[in-house]
């Protein structure tokens, strides 16, 4: 029964390396090594980010639920991100700005750097500087960082529905998003053809 490796032993590192190779390969194949393709999501000419993102989340969520149901994985042992109201929201805002200005996120910038995008290498340097700035000024907002702690709370526990129903709603939401983004993209590319 999974998870099979829960320590920080060498096996976890080797497995992570292999998973990382898959991660990089998939992102690059999907075109996520191009900042212009990534940012397309904000201007409506390319929604692949949304597609890959939601498809991956939905697939993994359904997969985890089935694995748990079949008793293959101990769902109580997997890591659930903790929620800190203010800190999480502020982080999201900063990341949104970083995304639209820099054109990458940390994961995709690695892939872009690997195929020789110089802007991605600079972006990575920027992320490191950003982390450094955060760490140096940490005492200023140490309280804020840990305030509003809600623990490792899941969406179904928060609204009080069953996990299966929550996943079902998420899947329906994702499919609807796929449909509408495809329609928007079609319209916008038709428009730009006219010019």
């Amino acid at each position, binding site marked *: 029964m999974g998870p099979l490796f829960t320590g920080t032993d060498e096996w976890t590192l080797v497995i992570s390396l292999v998973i990382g190779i898959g991660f990089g390969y998939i992102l690059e194949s999907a075109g996520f090594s191009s900042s212009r393709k990534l940012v397309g999501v904000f201007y409506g000419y390319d929604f692949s980010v949304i597609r890959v993102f939601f498809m991956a989340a939905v697939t993994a969520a359904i997969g985890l639920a089935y694995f748990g149901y079949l008793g293959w994985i101990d769902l109580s042992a997997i890591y659930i991100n903790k929620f800190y109201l203010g800190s999480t929201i502020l982080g999201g805002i900063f990341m949104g700005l970083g995304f639209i200005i820099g054109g990458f996120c940390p994961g995709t910038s690695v892939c872009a750097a690997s195929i020789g995008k110089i802007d991605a290498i600079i972006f990575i340097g920027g992320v490191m500087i950003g982390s450094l700035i955060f760490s140096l000024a940490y005492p200023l907002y140490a309280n804020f960082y840990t305030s509003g702690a809600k623990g490792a709370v899941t969406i179904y526990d928060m609204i009080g529905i069953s996990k299966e129903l929550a996943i*079902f709603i998420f899947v329906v939401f994702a499919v609807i998003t796929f449909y509408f983004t495809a329609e928007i993209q079609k319209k916008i590319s038709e428009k730009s053809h006219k010019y």
Partner: protein
Amino acid sequence: MDNIKSIKKRYILMSILLIGLALLLLILPERDSSKELEPEKLLFEIIDKNHFVTTDYVADRIINNDNYVILIDIRQPEEFANFSLPGAINIPLNNILDKTESGEYKWKDYLNNDTKKNIFYSNGNTYSNQAWMITRRLNYKNNYIMEGGLNKWKETILDPQRPKNEADNNELTLYNFRKAAKLFFVGGDTKYSSDDSETVKNKPAPIINKNNKKNEDEGGC
């Protein structure tokens, strides 16, 4: 044109497959996950002592108003009414296996929790240990014991002793924390009754375990 049509068909198929899988999940009969814990594993956990938390940890969580921690008082209702920790709920030990009309364990929703951390306490260690053992045997998760119970609480939080070794920074910090905690708890009109109905002299080795391995902050992404 045919090409586009077949692509469209494929997307519709994909959507149906996704929703179908999710729907199947929804209608699958609930699996009885209440498998009992193997004795070997239970023994390992008992020896491991990872299920103990300190009174300082509990005080810190109460002061910080952590919704993620639930205190469960397993003493009798009269004792609970007399004195209890702020925010604690009362599930007396002898009622812990009560069943509802439908045959389910009444307290299961509380005691078998995926997201919250339950901390049992009684006057000493024995009863909370028994409660913990019973819930573990049922394979319930996220249950802990406040080590030393209310006796230890009184000793450490309500009546902290100045450390002998003043030079030790850690001890001093702990003492200062306890003093502050005392102010926090005694500020109100709480009255502490100390009928030591339970004498636990042979205390287990004081293992302080603050980090719940499961939720260790990895620094994310």
